[in-house]
């Protein structure tokens, strides 16, 4: 039976779109996998909307996807096929805190990697306070995952956002045009970028657990020995490239062919 994989997300989706052959928004793999993706950062402006319109927030009702978003996702599906929805929603909240050094540098200790270096002179913020802080900044992301789950009760995966690059010089070069926004133009230490990414992933995983969404960790082959994004997988300071997108497609293919969550798909 043909399986449709409908991928929806923000700025991390281009890695997959590029991997899907530099042009077409969908393709069918031998073995009966039809893959298509919706880049909300393209879709929403095209409709005269913003990315904040993806999910409708009404205090008196559960969060709901904008009809145009669900229509776009539905458009990725081949009628009569088994359907997997794959989220690449959000995935950048941690980068707001982790690009340039603040004039009062901060750092924190990851509970399961407590030997990672702490930036000299940085204020150490309690891990759980950092988590609360970032979680607050991810409210919209959470609501969108909630809305996605409400709209699509079948198999639903969420792909972890890419790890950060390790190379400070690469990151600094990639951020050069924004240097004036920073007090001294110094990018945060690689270890802090890594910790923020891990914290972000921990939070997203907890959202996914709460909504019955399968959290898919970043492909191991795209990471170096310490968990940073391998240089050949980097697109810019915060995104991965088409090669990485190809690895994501491999992961999705493996999950689908393993029969993961078939009960929901039925």
């Amino acid at each position: 039976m043909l399986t449709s994989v409908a991928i929806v997300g923000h700025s991390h989706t281009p890695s997959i779109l590029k991997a899907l052959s530099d042009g077409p928004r969908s393709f069918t793999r031998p073995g009966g996998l039809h893959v298509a993706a919706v880049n909300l950062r393209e879709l929403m402006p095209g409709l005269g909307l913003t990315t904040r319109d993806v999910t409708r927030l009404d205090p008196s009702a559960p969060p709901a996807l904008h009809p145009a978003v669900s229509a776009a996702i539905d458009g990725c599906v081949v009628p009569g096929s088994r359907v997997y929805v794959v989220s690449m929603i959000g995935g950048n909240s941690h980068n707001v805190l982790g690009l340039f050094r603040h004039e009062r540098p901060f750092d924190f200790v990851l509970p399961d990697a407590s030997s990672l270096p702490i930036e000299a002179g940085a204020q150490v913020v309690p891990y759980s306070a950092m988590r609360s802080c970032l979680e607050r900044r991810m409210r919209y992301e959470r609501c969108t995952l909630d809305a996605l789950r409400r709209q699509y009760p079948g198999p639903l995966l969420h792909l972890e956002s890419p790890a950060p690059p390790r190379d400070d010089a690469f990151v600094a070069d990639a951020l050069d045009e924004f240097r004036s926004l920073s007090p001294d133009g110094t990018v945060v230490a690689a270890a802090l970028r890594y910790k923020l990414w891990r914290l972000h992933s921990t939070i997203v995983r907890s959202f996914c657990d709460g909504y019955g969404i399968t959290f898919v960790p970043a492909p191991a082959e795209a990471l170096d020995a310490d968990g940073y994004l391998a240089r050949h997988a980097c697109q810019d300071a915060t995104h991965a490239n088409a090669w990485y997108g190809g690895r994501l497609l491999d992961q999705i293919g493996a999950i689908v062919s393993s029969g993961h969550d078939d009960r929901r798909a039925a």
Partner: protein
Amino acid sequence: VSDHPYRHRPGFADWQRAVAAIDAAEVDPVVAFPFQIAPCDAVATAGSCFAQHIARNLAARGLRHFVAEPAHPFLQPDVAAEYNYGIYSCRYGNVYTTRQLLQLFDRAYGRFTPVEDVWEAADGRLVDPFRPRIQPGGFTSRAEYALDREQHFAAVRRMFETLDYLVFTLGLTECWRAREDGAVFPLCPGVSGGTFDSARHEFLNLDVAAITSDLEAFLDRLSRVNPRARVILTVSPVPLVATAEPRHVLESTTVSKAVLRIACDTVTRRHAHVAYFPSYEIVTGPHARGRYFDGDLRSVTETGVQHVMRVFFRHAVLGAPPDTATAPPGPSPDDAAADAFLAGMERAVQVICDEEALRS
């Protein structure tokens, strides 16, 4: 009628004129406060829970509440408060006893390292025995615990060395200490972390001599690191929540508050740089007819707090202070800068993401 010393006493010395005959809200027991705090002076706070009201109102009424261990400006205000940033000058939580204050100083300067220096919870989280409620859930790793402690002690030292005034609110005489080295805990082990063990922990009820001695030792140490520091002592009007003495809690409350008050009187008579401010008297005096206590007969109502602060500002603060709290202070320059920084970073992330979207 023959003449006698009481015939010529001023109005404040006469109960009828100073208390009974005037409106309760106008009772003002301060006669000659020795200090005039200027808006630029760094006023540090510590003490039992009533001290939180004082700390909050100092800032709200325009004084410089000296926060030596502030939250990082990225933290949202409610998250910062949950982690006890800005409640007092440093993240030490409630300092209920003079022994705790003295040991805080000694621990910050490396003069005393308690044997029982960390409590491990069943889930592996770590609790600081000397500030067991400083953050929800405790610390997540030894490394975090050690770094936070180091940072905390550095802030405490900075506070002691640079403050102009320390407002210390004495709250309790009863406490629990480690038998091995005398380390005093703010809460009995087992209440908010740790495990009570009568072989290791014992009850201690500080008497006037002990409290006076603690205060003298503290003042001596403080003056060595900060010779210009001045200290304002107050006694918390909040009754004991429970007593460990074999007597009624009401009796223990009376004894404890009396002991604290006598110790304050003793010390302030000895030192020109130490003053007493009568928070206790304003809240518990008969003029209030108990109305400054909330339904639980312990918590002080906001009306009571405002009476205390009104009198404090009238006598202890330079210039003509407002008689009621002003609007809550707006964002600090640090917070405003952080907001601007984060807004800039959000824009940067948006642009990067937009550029990436175009790639597809």
